[in-house]
């Protein structure tokens, strides 16, 4: 229950003591450790000043509030994807550097398929990573100047997410299949990376229309989607 004006959409601050956690996240197939369980509030009275509208946050005089729609979420999802990819590359290198085939006695690092997968994944993910950082820094400059991101920059904030997920999914899949049977075991870094990049991809797919909107924006259309 709440007192005072009720905005159409906004934030309601509730103390931890008012909520109970329902363990709906148990048994998921990816992103296991996030603790993304449901929260239930049986009854709690919220004072009016603990309710804030979305507009109040969007108009706050802070640089990050100048990010429109969900462009902030798009770029931070990209950061998560790239981090997963970087860990997978390192895991593949570590494994291939130490593993010897029991059947042939040949070092895993001598397999051309392993060499190709590691080299391709490493450069693909590092390019995505450096592009991500450059875009974040460029966007921050505009935010600090008191402006929202310009048309091209905002389009890239969404598209870098799509690019990161495509790049990392493909790279992690290649690394996983070029790895040894070790990667089939639960808890191996390539197994963890494979399931988590797909788990996070499900989240991005809900917002992937923003990537298409980015294309429309670059082509000159004014995008009216509030998520953009």
């Amino acid at each position, binding site marked *: *229950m709440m007192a005072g004006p009720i905005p159409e959409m906004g934030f*309601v601050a509730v103390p931890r003591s008012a909520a109970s956690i329902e363990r709906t996240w148990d048994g998921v197939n990816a992103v*296991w450790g*996030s603790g*993304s369980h449901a929260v239930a509030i049986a009854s709690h009275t919220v004072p009016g000043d603990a309710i804030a509208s979305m507009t109040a946050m969007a108009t706050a005089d802070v640089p990050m509030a100048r*990010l429109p729609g969900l462009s902030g979420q798009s770029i931070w999802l990209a950061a998560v994807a790239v*981090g997963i990819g970087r860990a997978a590359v390192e895991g593949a290198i570590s494994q291939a550097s130490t593993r010897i085939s029991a059947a042939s006695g040949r070092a895993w690092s001598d397999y051309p398929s392993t060499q190709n997968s590691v080299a391709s994944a490493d450069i693909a993910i590092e390019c995505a990573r450096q592009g991500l*950082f450059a875009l974040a820094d460029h966007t921050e400059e505009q935010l600090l100047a008191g402006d929202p991101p310009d048309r091209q920059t905002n389009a890239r904030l969404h598209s870098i997410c799509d690019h990161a997920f495509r790049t990392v999914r493909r790279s992690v899949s290649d690394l996983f299949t070029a790895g040894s049977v070790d990667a089939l075991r639960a808890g191996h870094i390539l197994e963890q990376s494979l399931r988590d990049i797909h788990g996070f991809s499900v989240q991005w797919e809900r917002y992937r229309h923003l990537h298409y909107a980015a294309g429309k924006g670059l082509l000159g259309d004014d995008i009216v989607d509030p998520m953009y």
Partner: protein
Amino acid sequence: MSVLGDVVDSADLVRAERRAGEAGYAMTAPVMERLGPLGVFRLLGRDRSTGLGEFIRVLEALAHADPSVAWAAANSNGAAMATHAFPDAIAAEMLAESNWFYGVGFPPTGKAERVN
């Protein structure tokens, strides 16, 4: 040292706790206790001035160690960002403890009722 440097220094612990966090379907106490005091869960709160460049690098570094922790930190920061929209007293209460993690539920499925 920057928050990013602190997070990179904490990566081994976060990585070591990953299996336990996955087994329990939640962030472990050692990770919470290490990252919380660094301010990782409130980088975008109104008592901070973390820029987008550092925030993105922190999330990437966390995801490198454990993507689930990165996801949880990002969501907590979404809630911390909301402190910019609240009156000073409410924001101060939300930010009172430096190591708090903020849960965020979006959108709620229940229905609020107005009371006088």
